[in-house]
């Protein structure tokens, strides 16, 4: 399929190079800030793509897991004085258990029912975050402590010396986000290329075929639901520490739609495609600041247009076009009918 071209290019080193050189082209701290946020969201979407793109299961409630990770980190570090990493892990564990518990009944459903169930789940979690003000700060939001790693605080307002160089906290945060994105891609590709990933793609390709060769399809659907939820939770935790302030918006239905639109626009089952999707859709609001009120409409429109005119998504469609331009070796003549 069209998805194979970008995968054959050694994608990870290229992505690493792009992330390394990018700061040279970013004019100011504001651009660096956007790039950092994009990297964190892109990593989330790489995880969501495992479920939606490779596994063929639609989730319209993924922001809820992102929000749970963000709030777990904010609350555990702020209210209870935990350090960042244990708080992050605790949030991820919580999300894993919740995803597993909810996923078991939900993933038996197919198609629209699955979308509806994940949508409902997301909305309920968002409502809980909104209403339990004593814990979450409610609609006003919650300030988040800076990230602490090995006893050291990483704040975007500080400067650090690294190998004798003076580096801004913002730049270090960008580096961390870039590393997280690379790690997210590496793990996702490892998974896709393993027997587990094959079983998962088979669930999408032909569930019946997968079952008759012995694949316990419900097990794999549940597994990937939990994994993609944990991706979202972990990135939510980092996002909370990075921005220093979170509101229920991070867990909202609108945010879920943003995430799924990134997957669909960029290209389902294409890891680099969905990163491109994240970049484009995160930049869009920056370019269209006058249209803030219409953001949801824009996302809806993009989702619709992509599905109608480019169902494979941006990157797979582009790489297919590139492949068509190249001379092809003669193909074996087709035999048989149908």
């Amino acid at each position, binding site marked *: *399929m069209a998805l*194979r071209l970008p995968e054959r290019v050694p994608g990870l080193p290229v992505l690493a190079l792009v992330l390394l050189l990018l700061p040279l082209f970013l004019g100011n701290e504001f651009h660096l800030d956007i790039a950092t946020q994009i990297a964190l969201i892109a990593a989330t979407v790489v995880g969501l793509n495992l479920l939606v793109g490779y596994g063929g299961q639609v989730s319209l409630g993924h922001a809820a897991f992102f929000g749970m990770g963000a709030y777990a980190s904010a609350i555990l570090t702020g209210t209870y004085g935990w350090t960042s990493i244990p708080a992050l892990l605790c949030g991820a564990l919580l999300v894993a258990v919740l995803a597993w518990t909810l996923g078991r009944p939900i993933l038996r459903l197919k198609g629209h029912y699955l979308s509806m169930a994940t949508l409902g789940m997301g909305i309920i979690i968002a409502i809980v975050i909104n209403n339990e003000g004593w814990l979450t700060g409610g609609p006003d939001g919650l300030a988040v402590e800076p990230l602490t790693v090995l006893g050291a605080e990483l704040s975007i307002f500080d400067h650090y010396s690294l190998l004798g160089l003076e580096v801004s906290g913002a730049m270090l945060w960008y580096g961390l986000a870039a590393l997280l994105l690379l790690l997210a891609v590496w*793990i996702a590709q*490892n*998974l896709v*290329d*393993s*027997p*587990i*990933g*094959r*079983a998962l*793609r*088979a669930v*999408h*390709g*032909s569930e*019946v*075929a*997968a*079952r*008759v*060769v*012995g*694949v*316990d*399809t419900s097990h794999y659907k549940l*597994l990937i639901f939990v994994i993609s939820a944990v991706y979202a939770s972990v990135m939510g935790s980092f996002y909370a520490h990075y921005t220093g302030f979170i509101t229920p918006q991070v867990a909202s239905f609108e945010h879920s739609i943003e995430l799924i639109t990134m997957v669909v626009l960029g290209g389902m*089952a294409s890891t680099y495609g969905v990163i491109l999707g994240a970049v484009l859709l995160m930049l869009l609001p920056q370019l269209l600041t006058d249209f803030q009120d219409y953001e949801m409409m824009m996302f809806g429109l993009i989702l619709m247009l992509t599905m109608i005119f480019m169902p494979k998504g941006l990157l797979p469609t582009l790489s297919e076009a590139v492949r068509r331009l190249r001379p092809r070796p003669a193909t*074996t003549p*087709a*035999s*048989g*009918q*149908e």
Partner: protein
Amino acid sequence: MNQNVQQTETSRDDTARLTPLLEVRGLGKAFGGVHAVDDLSFRILPGEVYAVIGPNGAGKTTLFNLITGLYQPDQGEISLKGEAVQGLPPERLARLGMSRTFQNLQICMNMTALENVMLGRHLHLKRNFLAALLRWPSLRASERTCRAQAEELIRFVGCGDYVDADAAAMPYGALKRLEIARALATQPSILLLDEPAAGLNSTETAALEQLIRKVAAGGITVVLVEHDMKLVMSISDRVLVLDYGRKLAEGTPREIRDNPDVIAAYLGG
């Protein structure tokens, strides 16, 4: 007395040989008012090539779906190697050595030919989650072996040109054989083929016949649903004729050819 002992042993040997690999007793499945499979009983011996024939709508595919766990029977029992298996899901039956292909191809079009066959190795692979996540050397080694085995199977079924092709780009005849390769990758003891020659030209059908012979020679019991009578008659040890979900006749190809009921049903229908 000596002679007596010997006789008992011989007959015991005989029964062992004749223990059916697959036995179906009183199997029934209805859809609304249609009895797709109706009070059907038969036994398939290990190593046989057993054909199931009958007009369209006779219930052949439904029978396969019942045997492989895709449908739940309304009545009756199915036993595999002496173990009751009716009602078990397909993924459990695969562990017991059941494998099949489909009349309407079930190929994962989002994967390559090679990956489709590697999928067939699923149950034989280490599926350690952490090893997959971190790409441990043990996993890479087992993937390499799996790849080699899958390639060999693809060549075995005669699709050597398509190893790295996307399934979606392969011609129909090659996909039919690819599906057999995937089924073989599970190392089944019994393989059910639903109309493997449908849509194939005569050269391809001849190649398919050779392939089925090779599979059977490898000790795999083959159950075959097929409309191509020349193929059925030349390859099968025994033939079951279905009509409206019921057994019309069962026997060797010669017996079936000479059976007046079968002649009447086929010429009449």
